């Protein structure tokens, strides 16, 4: 049934038409101007350094949430080790950025030099995370859904523990052990000279990364590929029955998710005023859990939801940390030394999630978006050749009509 065999009835489809080139260029320039403006105006806009840090961290988390949303939200799989990919990206970027910075020989963190350091760090982090994504996803995505959860969790914990428990002092033998020792074990990696990872990622890079991530996530979702992925989430057997290979789509989405997480890791490692060492403790299961919360809270499959979820969770985590400042909380901690505020965070999250599951099981946005493209008005013509029962029904509206005409259903 080539298009012509279906008849040539003139018909306007509502297919999105390409943005006029001029509009595209203008939008790109406006976004570029905005992030450059933020690079230089951020200090004035947000004078408080702690708040600056929080905003940048929230944006990194938006990238984390957007990437996890591809696999957990759109493809309907369940990865619970996303922090592992963020961590791999962070370590890779830290090593690359550290060495390039050293080679540049300029001690100051110059904005101009960031255009050498950051692209390299981002590419390396995304690339290495993608390779790990392929290695983890290829075997587990062939199997039933729950295998992915187990494998991703195992992968993230192995990654973290291998680094955290590596022998760092004394004589280490062999290239792998030497490399792990170089990563600094539990204390973390602080650049080739152990004086901190260069912090090239200012507002320009982090806002820029977030904007690009939103655009990519949006375009993926509203493409044939995203449609197939959502179909896969709804029904794998039916998806395969129309020629879409589930494994291929799942693996691709998983690699894309891992790449995004790797890039987020690069931002985290190089974040201005951030932690100058990359430490294994940043990538515990708690962080993977945060990422899952961001996606579910915002609405699985929603780009808008991932943004809102990423920001919301970041600020909530910070607020819980701030509790420590209160004297009453400190007194409580003194009285009960085993009281762990991290555990408290889990309690708060769990309560929020349970409440949400009861009140709004599909998350804040469900699968929807803030902006919804209205379907364009379609001019509809009589079909080139209607099904037989329909013509009969039209000739004789009294008679019962066929199942393919829709007119008999009441």
């Amino acid at each position, binding site marked *: 049934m080539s298009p012509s065999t279906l008849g040539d009835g003139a018909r306007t489809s509502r297919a999105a038409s*390409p943005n006029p080139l001029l509009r595209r260029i203008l939008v790109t320039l406006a976004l570029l101007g905005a992030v450059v403006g933020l690079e230089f105006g951020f200090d004035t806009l947000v004078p408080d350094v702690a708040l600056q840090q929080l905003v940048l961290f929230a944006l990194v988390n938006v990238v984390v949430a957007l990437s996890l949303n591809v696999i957990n939200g759109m493809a309907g799989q369940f990865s619970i080790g996303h922090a592992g990919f963020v961590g791999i990206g962070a370590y890779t970027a830290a090593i690359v950025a550290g060495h390039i910075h050293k080679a540049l020989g300029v001690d100051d963190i110059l904005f101009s030099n960031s255009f050498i350091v950051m692209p390299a760090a981002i590419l390396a982090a995304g690339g290495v995370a993608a390779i790990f994504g392929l290695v983890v996803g290829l075997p587990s995505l062939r199997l039933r859904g729950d295998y992915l959860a187990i494998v991703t969790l195992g992968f993230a914990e192995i990654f973290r523990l291998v680094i955290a428990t590596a022998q760092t002092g004394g004589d280490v033998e062999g290239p792998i052990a030497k490399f792990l020792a170089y990563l600094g074990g539990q204390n973390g990696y602080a650049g080739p000279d152990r004086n901190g990872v260069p912090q090239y990622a200012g507002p320009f890079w982090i806002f820029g990364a977030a904007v690009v991530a939103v655009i990519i996530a949006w375009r993926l979702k509203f493409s044939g*590929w995203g449609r197939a992925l959502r179909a896969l989430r709804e029904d794998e057997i039916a998806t395969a029955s*129309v020629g*879409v290979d589930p494994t291929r789509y799942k693996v691709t989405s998983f690699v894309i998710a891992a790449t995004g997480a790797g890039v987020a890791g690069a931002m985290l490692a190089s974040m201005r005023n951030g932690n100058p060492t990359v430490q294994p403790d940043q990538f515990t299961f708690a962080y993977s859990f945060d990422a899952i919360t961001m996606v579910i809270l915002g609405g699985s499959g929603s780009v808008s939801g991932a943004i809102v979820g990423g920001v919301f969770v970041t600020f909530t985590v910070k607020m819980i940390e701030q509790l420590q400042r209160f004297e009453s909380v400190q007194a409580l901690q003194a009285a009960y030394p085993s009281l762990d505020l991290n555990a408290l965070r889990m309690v708060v999250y769990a309560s929020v999630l349970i409440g949400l599951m009861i009140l709004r099981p599909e998350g804040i946005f469900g699968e929807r978006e803030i902006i919804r493209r209205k379907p364009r008005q379609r001019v509809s013509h009589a079909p080139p050749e209607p099904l037989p029962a329909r013509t009969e029904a039209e000739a004789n509206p009294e008679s019962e009509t066929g199942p393919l005409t829709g*007119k008999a259903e009441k």
Partner: protein
Amino acid sequence: MSALDLQGVTKTFGGLRAVGGVTFKVPERSIFGLIGPNGAGKTTVFNLVTGVYKPDSGSIRFAGEELSVLKPAQIARRGVARTFQNIRLFGQLTVLENVLVACENRRRSGLLSALLRSPSFFRDEAEMQRRALELLAIFDLDKLADETSTSLSYGNQRRLEIARAMMLEPKILLLDEPAAGMNYGEAEGLKKQIRWLRDRFDLTVILVEHNMQVVMGVCEEIHVLDHGETIAHGTPEEIRKNPKVLAAYLGEETPDEAASAAAAEEEAAT
């Protein structure tokens, strides 16, 4: 030339022989009935042909190619489309999107051009939508294009499933109980539509159906299974008279009774 050729196809689940050495040929461009009492193995045959299950033994050949070594998506791309006994639509997707997924495998522009929103992306998308809407118009679903598929009535969902299968441009269409839940008039319409689709799109149709009015009325050749075994094969006339078939349907409505009941109803209607 036969469109589909099954040779000694066997499938067991644990100790249960759901399909035991089934052999039949489906003539090209025919409407072929696969019938039998509940649990006879009809749906399992569909699942074997479409690659959802691998046969334990035997061969399934389509246009000279062995299907049992291929994955479901590959089989679909060869031109074998199906509907499901328990409707399997993409619930949260719109009617239009449901149909569009079925031409995803034919999209020429890749992921990169989707990310860049290149001209070829828009061209492909526009062409796919045009074809999808034409197909939906044939099934009178074009006005519902932007509704989510779960919001459709049962009959519309069944029709959408056929439309989605047709979007694959199949050479064979496997229909698993399309008349389930239809009244007499709807089933009469379905008969016409199956013939119409076959003629219009040069299809081979394999029909699994309990509704004897439809099976006897539309099929040119019928294969009867019972407990996974072949018990009869022939024209509707032959099947109607076959004592083994009558025995297999004992306790149920026999093909003969169903046909005469249908005839009586038809008389009453006129």
